[in-house]
C-alpha cells in the first residue's frame, strides 16, 4: 500500500510544532531563514486549501540546493554549529512544503526532535529544558494526529495520551541518561561566536564593570558545605590585571612571563578551610572564580602563578568545580626582581598632578601603612561618590581627572586610581577583577552571584605579608561591601532600571520572591545533578553499582546488547512493512516501472498500464524487450486467461 495521506488536522500540529522548536533559533540565524519559514508555511497552507500545488520535483530540488548554498554564502562556511542549525531549519521548512503523506509527517517530527536537541548545544539551563519538554509533547501530539482517522478531533484525550507516552518513556530516558556512554565528541564542536556574552574580560577600561552593573544575569552559583561567610568576605577572584597599556589594564599571560616566573608557589595556610561547589555559567573565558586562597581537585582545573583557578579552554557551557579555600599566612612573601618591576610599572609621563600629590603625601608620612591609610582617608573624606553613572573621562591623565575633578566613579575607577597611586609611591600593586558578594538563597543554602555583583579591587604587596587585599571602594561606599550594590545605590535609584522584566527587580513582591528563590534552588539541582553529570560522575556511579569494571568493556557490552535486541527488531519491523499483499504480477510490473524510470520514463500516479504502454511505445523501439514485457504484463495483470472476445 502506498503511504496514506496526512490527516488535515495533523498539518496544523506539524506546522505549529515546527515553528515552536525553531523559535528559539530565530534570534541566532539570519533573517532570510525566517522568511523561508514563513514562505514555506504559507505555501503549505495554500496547498491545504487547494489554492496551490506542490512545487515540481525539480523546483524542490533547486530550492533545496539554492537555500543550502545561501546558508554557506551567508555564513561564509559550512562547518560550525550556526550554519548547521541554519541548514536544519531550512531543511525542515522545505520538508514541510512537500509533506503530504504520513511518512513525510514522521520525517518532519524526527527533524523537529533533532532541532529541539540542537537547542541544548546553546543553552542547558532549566528553562530550556522545560521548553524542550513542551516541544517534545507537541511533537508527540503531532505524531498522534498523524495517525488519527481523518476528520477525527484532537481533544483532551489525545493530549493525555501524549503525556502518558512521554511518561512511559521516562524510565528508558533515565536508563539512557545514566548508562549511555558519554563519549567525548569525535570532532570538536565548533566554537560559538562570542556575541552577547556578558561578564568580565581580561582587559579593563574605566566603565567596563559599570556596564555589568546593569545586568541581573547569573554569573555563577555556589553551594557551601558549611555556613556561608558574611558578604564582606566574599571576594571572588577571577583575574589579575597587572599591566597598564594604552589606557587599559591587562592580564599578563603565561607567555609574557620569563621561564623562571612560571612555576607555582604554594603558600602556607592557616585557619579553617571552606569547602564549596561552584557552577559557572558559560563565560567564554578560561578563568574560574573562587575565594582566596583556592585549591581545586576537579578535573581540568589548574592553578596559576597569581593564585587563581583556570581551565584550558574558554567555558562555552556551564562548568562545575569544587574548591577548598583557606587563609594563607602570607601570599608570595618574597617578590622576585622581575615581578617587582612588573607590578610597579606605569608610564612615567602620565598623571603629573597625582605624582606631585603622592610625593607630597610621602614626605609627610612615616612608613608604608601610614601612607595607605592616608590615601584611603583621602577617598573617604573628600567628596567622592559611588555611582553607576560616572562621567566619562577620556583624558590620558585619568587619575588626575578622577581624584581631583570628577570624583564620581564605580569600583574600577577607584581600583585604577588606587593602584596608580600605590605604584607611584613604589608599592607593588595590581587590580583584581571578579565578583563581590552574592545573594543567599535560604531554600537550599546556596549563593547566587549575578553580573551586577561584578567588582574590581586591588592587591598591594607588603614586606613579609605578601599580597594584601585593599578595596578602595569600601572606603568610599562601605554599604557596597557590607550589603551589596543595591543598598549602595539606594539614593541613585538606578539599580537595574534597564532590565524591566527581570524577576530580580520584583523581589520586593513577596510571592515573586518566594517563587524566584525556589526556582533558583531548582536551577541549582538541575545544574549540579543533570548538567553536571559528566563522564567522570558516570564512571563513579557505575563503579558504585557494579564494582571495579573496565569502562571500555562496559560500553562494548552495553552497545552490543542494544544492537543485539534492536537490530533484529528493526529488521523485522521494516520487513513486515515492506512485504505487503501485492500480487506477483504487480511486483513484476512495479519492478519493470523502476527499470523504465531509470531510462527516463516515469509512470505517473494513477496512470494505467495501457496508457503507460502507449507512452513507452512512443519512446522506445517496438521490438525493445521492455516494451514486449510491458505489453505482456499489462494483459496478464487483468485478463483471466487470454485475449478478448470476438
Amino acid at each position, binding site marked *: 500500500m502506498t503511504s*496514506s495521506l496526512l490527516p488535515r488536522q495533523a498539518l496544523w500540529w506539524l506546522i505549529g510544532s515546527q515553528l515552536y522548536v525553531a523559535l528559539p533559533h530565530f534570534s541566532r540565524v539570519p533573517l532570510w531563514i525566517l522568511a523561508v519559514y514563513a514562505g514555506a508555511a504559507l505555501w503549505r497552507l495554500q496547498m491545504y486549501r487547494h489554492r496551490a500545488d506542490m512545487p515540481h520535483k525539480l523546483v524542490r530540488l533547486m530550492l533545496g540546493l539554492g537555500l543550502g548554498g545561501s546558508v554557506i554564502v551567508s555564513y561564509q562556511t559550512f562547518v560550525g554549529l550556526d550554519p548547521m542549525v541554519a541548514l536544519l531549519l531550512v531543511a525542515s521548512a522545505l520538508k514541510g512544503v512537500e509533506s503530504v503523506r504520513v511518512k513525510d509527517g514522521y520525517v518532519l517530527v524526527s527533524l523537529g526532535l533533532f532541532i529541539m536537541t540542537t537547542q541544548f548545544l546553546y543553552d542547558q539551563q532549566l528553562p530550556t529544558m522545560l521548553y524542550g519538554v513542551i516541544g517534545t509533547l507537541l511533537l508527540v501530539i503531532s505524531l498522534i494526529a498523524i495517525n488519527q482517522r481523518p476528520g477525527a478531533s484532537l481533544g483532551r484525550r489525545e493530549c493525555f495520551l501524549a503525556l502518558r507516552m512521554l511518561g512511559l518513556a521516562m524510565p528508558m530516558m533515565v536508563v539512557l541518561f545514566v548508562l549511555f556512554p558519554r563519549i567525548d565528541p569525535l570532532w570538536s564542536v565548533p566554537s560559538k561566536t562570542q556575541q552577547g556574552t556578558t561578564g568580565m574580560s581580561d582587559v579593563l577600561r574605566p566603565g567596563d564593570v559599570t556596564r555589568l552593573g546593569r545586568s541581573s544575569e547569573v554569573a555563577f552559583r555556589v553551594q557551601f558545605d558549611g555556613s556561608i561567610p558574611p558578604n564582606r568576605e566574599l571576594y571572588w577572584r577571577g583575574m589579575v590585571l597587572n599591566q597598564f597599556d594604552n589606557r587599559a589594564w591587562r592580564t599578563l599571560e603565561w607567555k609574557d612571563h620569563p621561564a623562571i616566573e612560571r612555576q607555582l608557589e604554594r603558600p602556607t595556610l592557616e585557619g579553617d578551610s571552606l569547602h564549596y561547589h561552584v557552577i559557572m555559567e558559560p563565560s567564554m573565558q578560561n578563568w574560574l572564580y573562587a575565594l582566596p586562597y583556592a585549591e581545586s581537585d576537579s578535573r581540568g582545573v589548574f592553578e596559576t602563578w597569581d593564585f587563581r583557578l583556570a581551565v584550558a579552554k574558554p567555558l562555552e557551557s556551564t562548568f562545575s568545580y569544587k574548591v577548598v579555600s583557606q587563609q594563607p599566612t602570607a601570599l608570595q612573601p618574597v617578590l622576585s626582581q622581575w615581578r617587582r618591576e612588573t607590578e610597579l610599572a606605569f608610564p612615567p609621563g602620565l598623571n603629573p598632578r597625582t605624582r606631585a600629590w603622592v610625593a607630597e603625601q610621602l614626605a609627610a608620612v612615616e612608613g608604608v601603612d601610614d601612607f595607605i591609610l592616608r590615601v584611603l582617608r583621602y577617598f573617604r573624606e573628600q567628596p567622592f561618590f559611588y555611582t553607576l553613572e560616572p562621567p566619562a573621562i577620556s583624558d590620558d591623565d585619568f587619575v588626575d581627572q578622577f581624584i581631583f575633578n570628577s570624583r564620581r566613579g564605580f569600583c574600577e575607577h577607584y581600583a585604577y586610581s588606587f593602584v596608580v597611586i600605590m605604584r607611584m609611591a613604589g608599592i607593588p600593586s595590581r587590580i583584581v577583577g571578579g565578583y563581590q558578594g552574592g545573594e543567599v538563597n535560604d531554600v537550599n543554602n546556596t549563593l547566587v552571584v549575578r553580573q551586577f555583583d561584578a567588582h574590581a579591587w586591588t592587591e598591594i604587596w607588603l614586606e613579609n605579608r605578601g599580597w594584601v587585599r585593599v578595596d578602595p571602594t569600601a572606603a568610599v561606599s562601605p554599604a557596597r561591601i557590607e550589603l551589596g550594590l543595591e543598598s549602595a545605590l539606594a539614593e541613585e535609584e538606578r539599580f537595574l532600571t534597564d532590565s524591566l522584566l527581570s524577576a530580580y527587580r520584583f523581589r520586593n513582591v513577596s510571592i515573586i520572591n518566594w517563587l524566584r528563590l525556589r526556582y533558583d534552588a531548582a536551577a541549582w539541582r538541575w545544574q549540579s545533578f543533570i548538567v553536571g553529570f559528566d563522564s567522570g560522575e558516570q564512571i563513579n556511579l557505575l563503579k558504585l553499582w557494579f564494582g571495579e569494571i573496565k569502562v571500555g568493556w562496559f560500553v562494548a557490552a552495553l552497545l552490543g546488547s542494544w544492537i543485539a535486541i534492536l537490530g533484529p527488531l528493526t529488521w523485522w519491523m521494516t520487513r513486515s512493512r515492506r512485504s505487503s499483499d501485492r500480487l506477483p504480477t*504487480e511486483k513484476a510490473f512495479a519492478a519493470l516501472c523502476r527499470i523504465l524510470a531509470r531510462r527516463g520514463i516515469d509512470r505517473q500516479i494513477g496512470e*494505467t498500464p495501457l496508457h503507460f504502454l502507449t507512452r513507452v511505445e512512443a519512446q522506445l523501439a517496438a521490438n525493445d524487450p521492455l516494451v514486449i514485457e510491458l505489453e505482456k504484463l499489462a494483459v496478464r495483470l487483468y485478463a483471466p486467461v487470454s485475449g478478448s*472476445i470476438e
Partner: protein
Amino acid sequence: MQSLIEQTVANIGEVVLGKELEVRRALCCLLSGGHLLLEDLPGMGKTTLAHALAHSLGLSFGRVQFTSDLLPSDILGLSVFDRERSDFEFQAGPIFNQLLLADEINRATPRTQSALLEAMAEAQVSIDGQTRPLPNPFFVIATQNPIHQSGTYALPESQLDRFLMRLSIGYPSAEAERRLLVRGDQSGLAQLPISMNAQQLVEIRGSVNAVALSDSLIAYVQRLTAFTRDAPEFAMGLSPRGMLALVACARTWALMAGRDYVVPDDVQAVIESVVAHRLVPSADYSGDGAALVALMQRSVDVIPE
C-alpha cells in the same frame, strides 16, 4: 455484440452531435441496468439524448414534465370509476413505459420525487393496495438544471444514490456546432433507425456478468474506495453500493470495448459519472464532486509501488 453497440453509438451520434463519449457513458449506464441523471443547462440536448436513446433501443417512451404541483398519481396513474361497468378502472401513468424521461425532476415536491424514486428502486408500484410490476427493462432518465435553484427541491444525497450515473453534456465543439447550424431545424430524430430491440438489450445486460474482474483490479477499486474514506477532503466516503455501481459500469464499459475483462482504463472512463454525485466534500474543501474524483485519480495508483 460489440458491432451492435458501436452501431447504436453511431446512430445516436447522428442526432446528438459531437458527444460520443457522453453518449457512450449514457448507453453504458442503461446497459448496466441503471438510471441516469442528466444535469445541465437548458438547451444542451438533454431531452434529445433521452429521446434518441429510447428510440434506438426500441423502448416505449414516456415523458413527464415535473412541476411543483405535480402529484404522485400524475406519474404512477390512478383508478377512475367507470360508471357503465360500475367498477374502478386503472389508468396507467407514464411510469409504465420502458423508458421514462423525468424532466426537471427537482421542480416537483419531495413527495412526488420519492414516489418516482421508490418505483425506480423497487421496479414495481403499489396503487390502491395493488402491486403492479413495471415493464422490463425499465429505465428512468431524469434531468435537472444545476442553476436557478429557486423554487426547486434539491434531491438529497440518499436519493441521488439511486441514479447509477450523473452526466452533464456540455457545449458541443465548434465543428459539431457548425453541423448543427447547417442541419437547421431537422433534429434527425424522426429518421433515427432502431438499432436493437429489447430482447437484445436484455441479452447484452446478461453477458455483462461474464466480464472478468482480476485481483489487481479489485484491489485498485478497493484502494480508490478506501481513499474516499481516509482522505480528509471527503466528508463522506464512497458507500458499498457506490463501489458496486463503479464496478458494474466498468464491466459494461469493458464489454462495450470488446473485452471480457476489466482494465483500470474502464474504471477511469466511468468513475466521474458514477462516483461524483455520491461524494460529499468536507466543509473546508473548496472543490466539488468532480474535483474530488480528479483528486482520487491522481492520488491512488493503479499498481502500488
